[in-house]
């Protein structure tokens, strides 16, 4: 694992934040009932975010954007924050997250040529995964069981490292989702 050197004060701040995160988010999220919707702010640790983004986490801010539950992992350098959005198992009555996933990534009728989403399949993540790249904010979509998530990392200019770092964090998220489902 690539690890950036941390200043002592920074390391202490990280430790404090990590312990706070564990008390308020992580343990509770992992230990919660498998039927409850996962808390997206409990799926990454401060250390994991800091290691990948090279800047310490200062807050994990939850919000809801429509039917997505989101968490903004705000880093000290705000441009290097991480956004995680989780589609609940039932984003709309009668429409499961898997069904929503299928509609978006496997539509019955292909979109017109100039409107199609160029989703790049990513192997080895969850049940299925796609990478969507944009000039500003690439996003990694991962389906696992009854939920899928969208992970977007800030501050990286090039698509390739953006994807690779996103995959690294996605694996951590999948581990925690897996742990939830086996409890």
């Amino acid at each position, binding site marked *: 694992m690539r690890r950036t050197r941390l200043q002592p004060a920074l390391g202490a701040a990280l430790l404090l934040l990590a312990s706070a995160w564990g008390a308020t988010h992580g343990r509770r999220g992992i230990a919660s009932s498998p039927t409850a919707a996962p808390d997206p702010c409990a799926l990454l640790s401060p250390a994991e975010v800091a290691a990948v983004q090279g800047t310490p986490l200062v807050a994990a801010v939850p919000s809801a954007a*429509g039917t997505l539950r*989101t968490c903004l992992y705000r880093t000290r350098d705000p441009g290097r924050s991480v*956004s995680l959005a989780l589609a609940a198992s039932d984003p709309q009555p009668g429409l499961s997250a898997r069904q929503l996933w299928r509609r978006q990534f496997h*539509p019955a009728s292909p979109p017109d040529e100039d409107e199609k989403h160029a989703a790049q399949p990513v192997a080895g993540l969850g049940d299925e995964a796609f990478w*969507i790249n944009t000039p500003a904010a690439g*996003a990694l979509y991962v389906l696992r069981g009854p939920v899928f998530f969208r992970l977007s990392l800030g501050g990286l200019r090039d698509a390739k490292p953006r994807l690779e770092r996103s995959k690294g964090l996605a694996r951590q998220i999948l581990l925690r989702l897996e742990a939830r489902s086996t409890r």
Partner: protein
Amino acid sequence: MRLGGKRLGGKRCTGLVVFGALLAGGSAWGQASSTISTGAPSVAWDFQPVGGGTVVNVGIQDVCPPGLCDDHDLQVTLPAPAATYYQTMTAKLTLTYTWTSTLPTDLDLFAISPAGADHGPGSPDDTSTGPGMEVLTVTNPLDGLWHIRSVASLAPLPTGAHLVATLSVAPLPTAPPPPPPAPGAPAFLIYPAPNDCAAGQTPPACIQPAVGSTTASTHSAGEPSIGVDWKTGVSFIEAGNHTLRVTFNDALKPATAFWEDRRSPFSRVSLDPILFTDDGHYGGTNRTFASQLDGACSETSFTDDDATTWLPSQGCGLPAGVDHQTLGGGNYTATAPLHSAYPHAVYYCSQDIATAFCARSDDGGVTFGPGIPLYTFTTINGVDLPLAAGTCGGLHGHVRVAPDGSAYVPNKNCKDANNVSRPGVAVSTDNGLSWTVRTVPDAVALSPGSDPAVSAGLNNTLYFGYANGDGHAKIAVSHDHGLTWAKSKDAGTPFGIQNAEFAEVMAGDDNRAAFAFLGTPTAGDTQSADFLGVWQLYVAFTYDTGRTWTTVNATPGDPVQRGCIWNGGGSNPCRNLLDFNDITVDRFGRVLVGYADGCTGPCVTDPSQNASTGPASAQDALATIARQVGGRGLFQAFDGTQFGTNSGDIEGGGQLCYGDPGEGISGGPNCYPRDNH
């Protein structure tokens, strides 16, 4: 039941088209035909029985397979070609379609126009036992051969039908004369981009394509965006992946425009071009961004020297995967990040899979933070629809930032708390860290339709312009970030506008805003290949916080489009203008509207030309700027100064004709009456 289907090129298509066409060409079903005209205005016939089961299909009325559909060809004859005839007359083709059934039955009536437009089914569209009826009315039917089709939607037993067609005509009600320009009303001059320089030609009569380009792409300027550098006064309009730099010379009357192709070397092929100038309105640096979404490599670059040099923004990636991006920027909220390296937040928003997102840049667009979702949507039959209350459909308008740092992304189709689809905005009051959807309560979603637009005045009064569900150009005002709205006003009323497209809004002083839109007084389906409306660019101004609006026709005598304006994406003859226009303001409060002119050359005066049938002059997309030259602008501080020039305007033949009765300012003695206030 409406039989669905995917529109392509204005016609419903299925894989059965060829098969159906071959069968339809045969005589097994004895294709009957008849003629209707103003001299013989009524005709009747019987359809062959159709049905014998439940039909589940798409586009069946276009294929018209034997047994499920019966065709009757109806020749509609008018005293003159439709485009000419309907300038003074109006007609109505009424098709009354009846049948009798012993089991629950739903037959549908469709009329396919000579231009291939589908009309139908008739009304009521329901299932009945015993007598059944549908009535289909076509206003101003095209002359030529129509295919009138009886289609089985639910018909357990083969069922015949009877049809009576009537054609009624009447003189077109005398349209009220366009309102004379009110004293002090805004006036515009139109600046079309010149053509590429031919051998031996030199600018300014033409435009020299950028180095490495064979064309400046001035005729491929669908969905243009516009910006003005407040420091230098230079304007920009984006034509495809060409950034056109326009320098106005206000020392001459009228002002002249010098056009240059200053294409960014980082703008290669583009499907969605966006230009944004972070102008000096609220302390911007006048940095101009050019963003290109393309199939190979999406790129954004920026310039700080009016497109003399360009620098790349956050990287180019493979492949481009999203749609409908927008760039915007402005102040941070009071809780600005500590480490920003640029005075303004810059937002990049785009449609993603299942969501739309915005990413914020704190370094002037060099790098961006993560993409944060605005809402969730789902795609059904190729259309992105909001999932639930508080969400919106996929496509959105342009991001705008208020002076207090609130960011707004407008959307034509959001669901309010009662799950009713309405235009609305995604609002962020925390520098884009989170977003909430707020809808306009008296607005109705128009689908398909074009994007709404939003802009905030100096004290954060929010102006929201949109094409309403009835097609009208509406604008609403909010004083609390979209939580509540004053009743929407119809800005097209003075001109009897029945259909509007491409709403664009720009606010200035808190009580002033301009609302530009394409409008036509012709009612009807603007998506139909049969639509014969003539579109002009209108700009409405308010100087009293939206209580009243003064609307002017910025392009009198020079239509922007004849015929349909296609909102459905994909390819269609009427998609020449693509998805939007743009509006901005210079530092003197002068409004500039960037638009693609779809009707140029002979189309301007030839009413028989139409976007759906061509020729090319009726399907153009010429980069054009409508520049305000008279009336009050958006900043009171410059009222009466002729936008800072103090040199008169063209209407006054060089006199100081900037009179403004609202401000008690009179024009010179030799001004034309309309300017001599």
